[in-house]
């Protein structure tokens, strides 16, 4: 008895391994970009994301849908849902309500992080909290400006979280409240 192994033709084997890797590394992302259903957004160019709010998209993000109630941006299975500013400026209370929502969510057992403050590029104060599930991450950002608060909800499969989370933070930090003159 003699075990043959899988090394019947090493060059052919190397080509097969390389071809499968190339398919996943290059061809699949190319096809994905081609068939993506949303409207392409111009990276770096401010975009009116809802009434009274502008946001600077990061590369690869698309406009999935837009209505008076909410705007959804998406990329690679992740989404960022932006609600128009609503009256209210107590960020601490609002973020605690968000935390309670995660902790009492009957559909998932989230590990909820500590609410963190942040400041947008325009100087507006905000609070954010992240909830980690076994296969999904959700994050909420609240930004306060002149007596109103904008809410932004992000969600991502865990596999894309590492690469997409910085994009989401950048886009949220770029939010500007448009004043009506």
């Amino acid at each position, binding site marked *: 008895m003699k075990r043959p192994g899988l090394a019947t033709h090493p060059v052919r084997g*190397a080509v097969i391994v390389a071809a*499968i890797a190339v398919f996943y590394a290059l061809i699949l992302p190319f096809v994905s970009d081609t*068939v993506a259903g949303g409207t392409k957004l111009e990276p770096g160019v401010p975009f009116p994301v809802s009434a009274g709010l502008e946001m600077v998209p990061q590369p690869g993000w698309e406009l999935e849908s837009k209505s008076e109630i909410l705007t959804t941006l998406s990329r690679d299975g992740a989404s960022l849902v932006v609600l128009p500013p609503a009256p209210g400026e107590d960020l601490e209370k609002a973020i605690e309500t968000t935390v309670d929502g995660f902790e009492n969510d009957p559909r998932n057992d989230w590990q909820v*992080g*500590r609410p*963190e403050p942040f400041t947008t590029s325009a100087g507006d104060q905000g609070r954010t909290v*992240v909830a980690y599930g076994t296969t999904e991450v959700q994050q909420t950002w609240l930004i306060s400006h002149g007596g109103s608060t904008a809410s932004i909800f992000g969600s991502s499969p865990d596999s894309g979280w590492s690469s997409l989370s*910085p994009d989401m933070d950048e886009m949220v930090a770029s939010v500007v409240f448009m004043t009506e003159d």
Partner: protein
Amino acid sequence: MAERHQSFVQPRSPVFWVFIFLTVYGLIRIAPFLFRDLSAFPLSTLFAATLWGAYAAALGLILYQTELFERRSPVTILGAFLWGSLVVSGIGVTASPAMATLVESVIPPQYADWVSAIAAPLTEEPLKMLGVIALAMIPGAHIRTTLDGLFYGLIVGLGFGVTESFLYTTSAVASQGGSMSVVLAVFVLRGFIGGLWNHPTFSAISGAGVGYFVESDRTLTRRSIVAGASLVVAMVLHGLFNSPLLSGLGVVGAIIKGVPALVMLIFVFRLARQNERSRFEHIAAEDIDHDLITDDERESLLYTRTRREERRRVRRSTGRAAAKRLRRTQMAQIDLVETAIDHGVGSDAYRAAARVVRESKTG
């Protein structure tokens, strides 16, 4: 047991160089995330690296205990780990989200919850299985049996799971201002609630399929069907774990969803081990001279436990030196059977291995 096998480091093998190229490519893809987190939150990132490193080492050591007759090369094991941690993770950085976009574009919006359950297995499982296939194509890696494939599948999955979880942890740290408590929370969530039977389990099943393909003497069609089916099973189990099913039960739901994969792994593992024992016993009984391996010795060699018990018995009755000599003899006998399987009885390698057994028996 026998001498350890040579490693997968085979400069003459084109597959080895593809393996190295893809590992470097994966490192280049992963490096920006590592540097980003390390420069922004060095302490938390190092803490996360320490925790996940210890986790990988501990689980790796447990998996190493599954060795029955083979003496696997630590370098090859490291190579399998690097395939999971760098190649699968590095390619996955773009491939997983791209697959998610594709899946999203074809499934109805009301099933958006299922995107991760469909997309992640379609990307990650074939890439993990590819690592075992690549190793099986490199003669020095010595993947010859179902159990070999299962073992290296476990290691590839462990490498991927640990790296994915480490990156997930550091991203969580970054979004929490460097909080150490987040590191612990995510470590528990991904390492214990959803980690123990997650990626290593799925790729162990597909790896066993690769091992079967190599080992079996059935028709190419049948071996291909079994290997393909093992990949499908791994993908389905992965999809079940990622699915929104039972998500209302929280942690309990995640644990329940992992049970089918664990049961399947135990089933395949027992089958592969039994198969390996039967093959060993058959060769030792039919092809090996009885002066080299007697019937009693053969029975004792079949289990790690019985080999150890035999050495204990000899140590008590004859002393430590005799027990050490017995250990050398057992290693030489196992090596002899493995050599008979790999090179055939009558080969030069077999004659050399038989000489070692005789020398060890005569002291």
